[in-house]
């Protein structure tokens, strides 16, 4: 396994897969990860740690920021033993395995194992997410109404 150079790892693409891994359902992620085979050797630079992030909104949706409330988040950082590649994860919820798997996947995506991780993990996760979103959007669309204002006799 070898690390790809920094230029080869596009920040936009990395943001996308890290977000996808963070939003993933922990049990689905675990099942896909198990199916991919052995977990690569790694050190924990930061063991999975449960904490909170303060979520902010904006007054009037567009104005000054305010603190809405916190959400639980678990984070983790790993370094692959084979090549020294570092992976990070910040994922919603309190599932330590979710964070560790996401950090490992982030690391592997920066190596030549990337195509395998994309096929075995990211693509199925993205497909499941798209299907779930589509399903909600279709149910919402079925509740779309056209209100009619009734014209009252004026004369």
């Amino acid at each position, binding site marked *: 396994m070898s690390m790809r150079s920094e230029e080869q790892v596009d920040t936009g693409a990395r943001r996308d897969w890290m977000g996808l891994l963070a939003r993933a359902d922990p049990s689905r992620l675990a099942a896909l990860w198990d199916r991919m085979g052995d977990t690569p050797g790694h050190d924990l*630079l*930061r*063991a999975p*740690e449960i904490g909170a992030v303060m979520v902010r909104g904006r007054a009037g949706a567009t104005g000054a920021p305010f603190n809405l409330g916190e959400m639980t988040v678990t984070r983790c*950082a790993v*370094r692959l033993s084979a090549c*020294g590649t*570092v992976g990070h994860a910040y994922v919603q919820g309190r599932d330590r395995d979710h964070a560790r798997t996401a950090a490992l996947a982030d690391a592997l995506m920066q190596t030549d194992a990337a195509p395998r991780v994309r096929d075995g993990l990211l693509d199925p996760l993205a497909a499941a997410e798209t299907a779930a979103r589509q399903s909600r959007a279709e149910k919402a669309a079925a509740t779309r109404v056209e209100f009619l204002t009734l014209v009252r006799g004026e004369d």
Partner: protein
Amino acid sequence: MDAASLTGGLRDPARDGARAFRAAMEVMARPGTIATLDHAAPPAPLSAAAGTLLLVLCDPDTPVWLAGACETGAVRDWLAFHTGAPVVAGPGDCAFAVGRWDALTPLDAYPAGTPEYPDRSATLIVELDRLLPGGTVLEGPGIAVQAALPLPDPAAFAANAARFPLGVDTFFTSGTHVAALPRSTKVLV
């Protein structure tokens, strides 16, 4: 971020953190006491003791000023990864400041708290070449009769104590050693 910045944290965060925090409390509660803090391996020029203090005291709510030679990319990255503390450009709005005495002085540049909230003040971590018993004589809470610490500028700390309950609190670090001087301690000059 360089991979080296991601190492050198607490080896066993829960236990090391609790032990180091206990040591920091002890030296602050008993001015003049010197304790060992070696739970972290920060990048140069930070000492192990100063690095350990930063790890157990700082978080995203505590702006840190890296004074003088401490202001390096490696220190910034290390602090960011391990604590999430924001780095600020000067003493005026920091919660913690770390550096050598000549880079940190003067003390009246730091937040000293308000009469309603004296705790809204800065804590300094002063890196010394040596931290051995003896030096300026200290009296006050937590000291049986008298204690002594090698203060870099006794007059400045006496003036800080005179502002009590306002003022700053100070840790002194050297290698793996730490001592402290709260604002409540009387500095005999």
